[in-house]
């Protein structure tokens, strides 16, 4: 299993002269550590806005436009989350990011037996088009870009979103929904109180991102519905459909965040994520798409861990690898296809339950790494998230952290202020080399899907995670407030409580909706979905969008697909 990076990660070396991910660090770096070719025609560093984009994808970087401050939010029912969205927009947030609850992420309705106790807990419960309409009531989806973090049933959630936007985000007011007939009270209440009368927005005007990165689910996050092959087909159908129908939409966010949160190193996050990305490109090209038609809409999502320079080097290496692979391997001609755009989130896994206010400091440093690494959007975690979903106060501090970095520190005044740093450039090179070593290893196993089936990623991550835990427990890595400077008696901060009664309310909503809809239309939509799922020559998206409009639920659509495709089970390794 080991690659050449492994000896460096051995725990018999003192952790102090290695980065968080095990890269050796020397006392001094000099011009001798800069990569070969600097200043030449194929300069590996180059300038911001120019190939290979090591220094960022825009020439002026944040002088031209700040990153999008995009806090991930969602809990309870669509009504609670709609209120939180309005709160965030009122406080200067510039984009929305939706967290869904576990049943939604796993393709179950709120009244499914396996949803017991999980409804609205980790995110918002969305079962139907109507819930989606309530979620965005009063928000102009033609103006605000929206990110949705969902993967296995992403195509269905996107269909709900498109249908909601095209009906007007306060869609119940247009008389089309079952609620207009008096069927569902909650939705009517929201339409009356929350709506600012936003009109229908056509799909081609919608901007935002849906995560839809199914490969990393099997690798790390483990939220799956179907076996890998049909899941990849569904993902490919969605990318293809979005390429045609939603020119402002990012149909996938290829994510290292969850790989890192599952315990990987920075090298693994970098390598596995980029290899996933290259796999999606291969698939789309194999389906007959021109790489330059879809590559400019691909986006990425990385973690920002606490090892400041290592993280900055990781983003820079990622951009350089992506530019090279898209240009050289896939022959992309459009410079926008070469540019890696990414979202960053500070590391949830770096937050401590002990002395939680210290997390504000950690998050600040991590956020700064994201900014100096050239991120296009950023989520800063709240200090209380090792304990529960964040309170409104904690979220506000997290957002203010970004605003302080943007408006007070001056780091935005010049493009890539760290470019040319001996240490940063050397580390960038090293991470890049290690990513290619992993690529070779994955190729030798038969590619990403084959490597998943052989548990390669899962084992690598479990190893790295266990190794780090050992370093902390032996005191080789200091975690302030946990294994050093700990306090004996700590009071827990005030935490957000999700009202357990919301589960019942959401179940009542979906039950009422089922009772009020046109069952013949539902049956027809599901029959078509099953039929299309069994054929390889049709794109599934039109059937899914029509089913969404007929108020077919998330669970019903996923069950229909599970009937045709089956389910996925992993053999756990530890």
């Amino acid at each position, binding site marked *: 299993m080991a690659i050449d990076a492994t000896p460096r990660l051995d725990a018999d070396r003192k952790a102090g002269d290695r980065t968080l991910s095990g890269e050796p660090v020397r006392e001094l770096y000099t011009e001798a550590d800069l990569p070969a070719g600097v200043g030449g025609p194929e300069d590996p560093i180059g300038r911001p806005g120019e190939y290979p984009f090591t220094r960022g994808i825009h020439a002026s970087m944040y002088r031209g436009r700040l990153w999008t401050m995009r806090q991930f939010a969602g809990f309870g029912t669509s009504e609670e989350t709609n209120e939180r969205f309005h709160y965030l927009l009122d406080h200067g947030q510039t984009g929305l990011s939706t967290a869904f609850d576990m049943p939604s992420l796993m393709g179950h309705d709120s009244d499914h037996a*396996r949803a017991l106790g999980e409804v609205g807990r980790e995110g918002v419960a969305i079962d139907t088009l109507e819930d989606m309409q309530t979620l965005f009531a009063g928000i102009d989806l033609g103006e605000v870009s929206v990110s949705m973090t969902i993967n296995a049933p992403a195509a269905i959630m996107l269909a709900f979103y498109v249908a909601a936007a095209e009906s007007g985000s306060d869609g119940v007011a247009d008389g089309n929904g079952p609620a207009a007939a008096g069927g569902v009270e909650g939705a009517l209440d929201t339409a009356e109180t929350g709506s600012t009368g936003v009109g229908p927005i056509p799909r081609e005007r919608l901007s935002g991102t849906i995560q839809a990165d199914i490969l990393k689910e099997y690798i790390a996050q483990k939220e799956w519905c179907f076996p890998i092959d049909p899941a990849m087909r569904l993902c490919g159908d969605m990318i293809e459909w979005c390429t045609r129908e939603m020119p402002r939409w990012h149909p996938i966010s290829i994510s290292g965040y969850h790989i890192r949160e599952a315990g990987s190193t920075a090298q693994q996050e970098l390598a596995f994520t980029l290899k996933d990305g290259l796999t999606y490109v291969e698939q789309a090209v194999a389906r007959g798409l021109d790489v330059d038609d879809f590559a400019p809409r691909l986006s990425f999502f990385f973690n920002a861990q606490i090892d400041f320079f290592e993280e900055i080097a990781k983003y820079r290496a990622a951009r350089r690898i992506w530019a090279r692979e898209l240009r050289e391997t896939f022959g992309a001609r459009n410079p926008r296809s070469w540019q890696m755009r990414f979202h960053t989130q500070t590391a949830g896994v770096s937050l401590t339950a002990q002395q939680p206010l210290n997390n504000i400091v950690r998050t600040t440093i991590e956020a700064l790494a994201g900014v100096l690494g050239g991120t296009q959007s950023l989520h800063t975690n709240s200090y209380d998230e090792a304990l529960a979903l964040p309170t409104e106060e904690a979220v506000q501090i997290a957002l203010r952290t970004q605003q302080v970095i943007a408006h007070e520190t001056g780091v935005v005044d010049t493009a890539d202020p760290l470019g040319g740093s001996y240490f940063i450039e050397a580390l960038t090179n090293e991470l890049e080399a290690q990513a290619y070593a992993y690529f070779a290893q994955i190729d030798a196993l038969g590619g990403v899907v084959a490597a998943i089936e052989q548990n390669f990623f899962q084992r690598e991550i479990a190893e790295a995670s266990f190794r780090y835990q050992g370093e902390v*427990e032996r005191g080789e890595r200091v975690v302030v407030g946990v294994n050093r400077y700990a306090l004996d008696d700590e009071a827990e901060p005030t935490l957000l409580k999700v009202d357990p009664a919301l589960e019942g309310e959401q179940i009542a909503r979906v039950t009422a909706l089922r009772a009020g809809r046109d069952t013949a239309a539902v049956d027809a939509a599901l029959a078509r979905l099953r039929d299309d799922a069994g054929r390889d020559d049709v794109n599934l998206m039109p059937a899914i969008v029509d089913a969404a409009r007929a108020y077919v639920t998330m669970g019903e659509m996923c069950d229909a697909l599970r009937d045709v495709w089956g389910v996925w089970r992993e053999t756990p390794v*530890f």
Partner: protein
Amino acid sequence: MGGKIRVVIAKPGLDGHDRGAKIIARALRDAGMEVIYTGLHQTPEQIVETAIQEDADAIGISILSGAHMTLVPRILELLRENGVEDVVVVVGGTIPDDDADELRKLGVAGVFGPGAPTTEIVDFLKGAVAA
């Protein structure tokens, strides 16, 4: 007693956060225990069935989805219904203090939050199973 301590590490509910469960499973195994890891997405019924079939001395429940106040009491109830009284149940994950107190009242022997060292959990289980 005699022999190795047998522990079922269980992931109830729908969340896929298995970093903690895997670290604990491996730490307990390295400490000489027999570890059965259920894998993800287990129902309370499946977990209790596994514990009975494996003749477990302890069950370690790892949960980070916020559903602990629904799923953990259900597991305890099913253990009682099946006449399993002597299994030590511990819970790990993001469990607020109030909920941890409530779970202890319901019969959970130990609750371990983020940052708990694996050595502490190993020692706790050795003590609790021997008792």
